[in-house]
């Protein structure tokens, strides 16, 4: 029973991690809280759903929706954040403009797909189950976990060992110094938005598959949980976000099983509040992205 719950927590945590990485990456690089991240998460799921509906194989739909989410992130930066960057607008104003962008994306999604919940066609999903020593897991869940872990692995490699990763970490550490050393700031920020939004979009598609449900509300449901995760892990820390996500996934499934489902989310936000008050840098703090 306990192992089964932990397995469920693992699947949930993997998707949370993909979502939270995007959040925290943008905070680490730009010091802004991007409240449109959840809207991109939702839109990517809808786009994948429509592509599958149009007859594309799931893999191709997934890939195309990721690219779409990435470019949407770049567009978001160009429209809602870049003009504010040029006038040094502080933290409140970009927060508001990201809300504006989120409202627009939400409105477009409502206009195109309507207010109802959508499902993937059953032929697109595998329903087979695998039994491993008393634990039952869906093949789809395993696939989702594998995709999430692979994406995290690739991101970790990119951040650690490529020129782009070094540029991202340099801009996160000190934008002015990075510019002096010849890093193309705007290009690095654009690529950061592409990566962060593609990961957020991937999370949206995977969670849509996991629950076989895509709806306008799916973004607002994960938005504040993602916030709790990146506070737990430490704002701006990618590794922290991954650890925080798996902790939250486990805590959620365990508290449903052993405590009560009604106060499940209160635990997450209670922990978030305590961490902010007692240790605002979280488990790993902001330095982690710079040193990744």
């Amino acid at each position, binding site marked *: 029973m306990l192992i089964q719950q932990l397995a469920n927590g693992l699947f949930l945590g993997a998707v949370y991690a993909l979502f939270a990485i995007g959040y925290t990456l943008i905070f680490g690089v730009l010091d802004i809280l991007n409240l449109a991240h959840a809207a991109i998460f939702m839109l990517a799921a809808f786009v994948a759903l429509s592509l599958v509906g149009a007859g594309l194989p799931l893999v191709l739909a997934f890939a195309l929706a990721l690219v779409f989410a990435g470019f949407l992130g770049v567009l978001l930066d160009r429209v809602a954040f870049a003009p504010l960057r040029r006038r040094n607008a502080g*933290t*409140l104003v970009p927060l508001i403009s990201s809300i504006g962008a989120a409202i*627009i994306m*939400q409105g477009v999604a409502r206009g195109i797909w309507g207010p109802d919940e959508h499902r993937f066609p059953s032929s697109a999903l595998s329903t087979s189950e695998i039994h491993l020593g008393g634990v039952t897991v869906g093949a789809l869940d395993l696939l989702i976990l594998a995709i999430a872990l692979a994406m995290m692995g690739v991101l970790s490699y990119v951040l650690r060992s490529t020129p782009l990763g070094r540029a991202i970490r340099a801009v996160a550490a000190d934008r002015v110094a990075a510019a002096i050393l010849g890093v193309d700031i705007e290009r690095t920020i654009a690529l950061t938005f592409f990566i962060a939004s593609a990961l957020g979009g991937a999370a949206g598609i995977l969670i849509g598959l996991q629950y076989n449900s895509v709806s306008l509300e799916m973004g*607002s449901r994960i938005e504040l949980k993602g*916030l709790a995760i990146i506070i737990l892990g430490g*704002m701006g820390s990618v590794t922290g976000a991954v650890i925080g996500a798996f902790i939250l996934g486990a805590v959620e499934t365990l508290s449903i099983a052993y405590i009560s489902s009604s106060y499940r989310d209160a635990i997450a936000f209670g922990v978030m509040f305590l961490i*902010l008050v007692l240790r605002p840098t979280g488990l790993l703090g902001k330095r982690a992205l710079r040193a990744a």
Partner: protein
Amino acid sequence: MIEFLSQHSKLIDQVGINALLALSLSISLRAGSLALAQAAFMGIAAYVSSVGAVRLGWNLMAAALLGALAAALVAAVLALPIGKLRGVFLAIATIGFGEIARIVEINWPITGGAEGFSGIPNDASTIWIYATLTVVGVALYLFGRSKLGLAVSATREDENAARGVGIDVAAVRMGTLIAGAIVAGLAGALYAHSNFFITPGDFGFGRMEQILVMCVIGGVTSSAGAILGALLMTVLPELVRFLHDYREVSSGAILLGIILFAPSGIAGLWQRRT
């Protein structure tokens, strides 16, 4: 005129309540604190005033004042742990507090849970709402011109300098949080008493975003701006009904446009011209 007022009385009430909410947030923002707990304060007062009215027979005046008092007490307790937080961290901590408040409202038996609490007397008339708005607006106007109001602005502009001239910055932040909670509480009580029923979802993060948007569109720290912002963002969705499902897009586009092209909000445009 009278026909117009009676046809749109629901909308007019909404404008008044939203103006109170935007004003309540502007009080914290005047001190430079991005404390986003207004929706939670609103909800606490809404539930206290509704349960009091239905179970204990409080009249509107008693219900509104006791609801606002409850919100103020919660704000005073909340102010202690979050006193040291600034900027985005303060925003997130208060958002977290708002979610906890909402989850408690869902699970506490007396509130009627997620289904909502109904049977609230519908006695908050347009006159009550606008009388409250007038009192709060005048009080804020006078406060802004007082020495205390100057201390609040100084805290926003430069905390260290404010401390240097002897301003108790911690007290200013706590005071503005509590004052904002009282105004949000009055708005919450009036909201509950102009609807037959309330649900915890009425006071969640979506509401908080809406309040923040109205406040910033008007011009972060100006009372007139907050009221204008509330007017615009409440009436606009009604004016663009013809857009049907795409209605939200216009609100988002206006918000984004004002942020990008009029950094000090509508009130700022006005000041530049005069």
